[in-house]
């Protein structure tokens, strides 16, 4: 894929693209806001997950790779 296109999609900004369905943009914005609000209220990982399980849960064992092959 064109890396620029991918970057635009990841950024998900409606002003950037017009490539993304408006409902998806609205959902993403709402999701980001909810996650930021929870983080502000102190719900976060702070590295605990990695530390507790002997480093086995690196990026590959985290979301979205939840099968533990």
């Amino acid at each position, binding site marked *: 894929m064109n890396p620029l296109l991918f970057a635009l999609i990841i950024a998900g900004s409606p002003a950037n693209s017009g490539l993304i369905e408006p409902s998806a943009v609205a959902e993403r914005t709402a999701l980001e806001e909810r996650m930021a609000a929870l983080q502000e209220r102190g719900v976060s990982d702070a590295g605990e997950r990695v530390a507790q399980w002997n480093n086995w849960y690196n990026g590959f064992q985290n979301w*979205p790779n939840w099968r533990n092959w």
Partner: protein
Amino acid sequence: MNEGAPVRLVVVQPTPYCSLDCAYCYLPFRNDRRRMTLDTLDAIGRNLLASPLVASEIDIAWHAGEPMTVPPEWYRDAFEKLAANAPDKTLRHGFQTNGIHIDPTWIELWRAYNVRVGVSIDGPARLHDARRRTRAGGGSHALVMRGVDALRDAGQAFHVIAVLTADALREPDEVLDFFAGLGAVEVGLNVEEIEGVHGESSLAGDDIERLYKRFLSRAIERADPGLRLREVEGVRWLLSAPPEVRASNPQVSPLAIVSVSVDGKMSTYSPELLGTPTTRWDDFAFADVHREGPEAILENPVFMKLRADIERGVVACAQSCGYFTVCGGGAPANKWFELGDFAGAETLYCRLTRKATLDAVLEAWETANG
């Protein structure tokens, strides 16, 4: 698009054979008793692990068949051979096992090589035995629990993967009571997938998303001190991960995961793909580790077509889905098995494991935090 490499996870199939006969199994060749030869292991070390395309620290998952039907001595040789052939790399081995063969000899091996151990248990006997059956058709719960007792007695850490069926979702407290007392480091909740030779799921019904979300909400509400759920911890991790990490997804990144079959065929993307019989995709076998390294996968013309389709699927996700920035385009295997098309977007699998999981966990935390 993320180029994928370096390879960070290598999934090795020591044998396709499995000693159980679970109702939801996706493996097409679980009666095949072949065992990987030492020649093939030698080639995995030399041509794959030692490759500059492979990261300096690698997870090796022994899977795609029951790894413990191959004896512990074989693994001692295997671990030594791989380490000797890739001396500059740090190898971290992991087993995902059906748990019925665990004994002190195995635990000693895992200790000696610092192997991560995951046991598959679906909950209490009633639920587990309904699906996870022996080859004679009986339940396997008692056998697995004997193995779990051995792990606990030896102080060997283990995690659990549980496959949730519709029956389990209807009885959250029964399932959560069981796992809260089990002593696992973490419990991962897989959903019964439509995958491989398992062409239907008890989770395909109308009410399933509600039941799945209710299950997770109940788990968060109970907050059992002895129970750490992978799904909940995964969402917690998401909250603090930087945006580019959240959306990175090795299942759609070429070479990030490399799978090696019992006879040395190599594949990439979702590990479930390798060995799925399909003429269109050459059984997803794109290179032979006896002759070549992981770069050969990238040059295979069938792989190139697959890559284009998977990338179209990622774009479809990016354009249509409100969860893309925390999912990165899902699991190609599930798109293929459910939709028959890598270029598709939403699946039952992602509706439950991504969307409903996020919704349920965020909602529960929002309620708890006023």
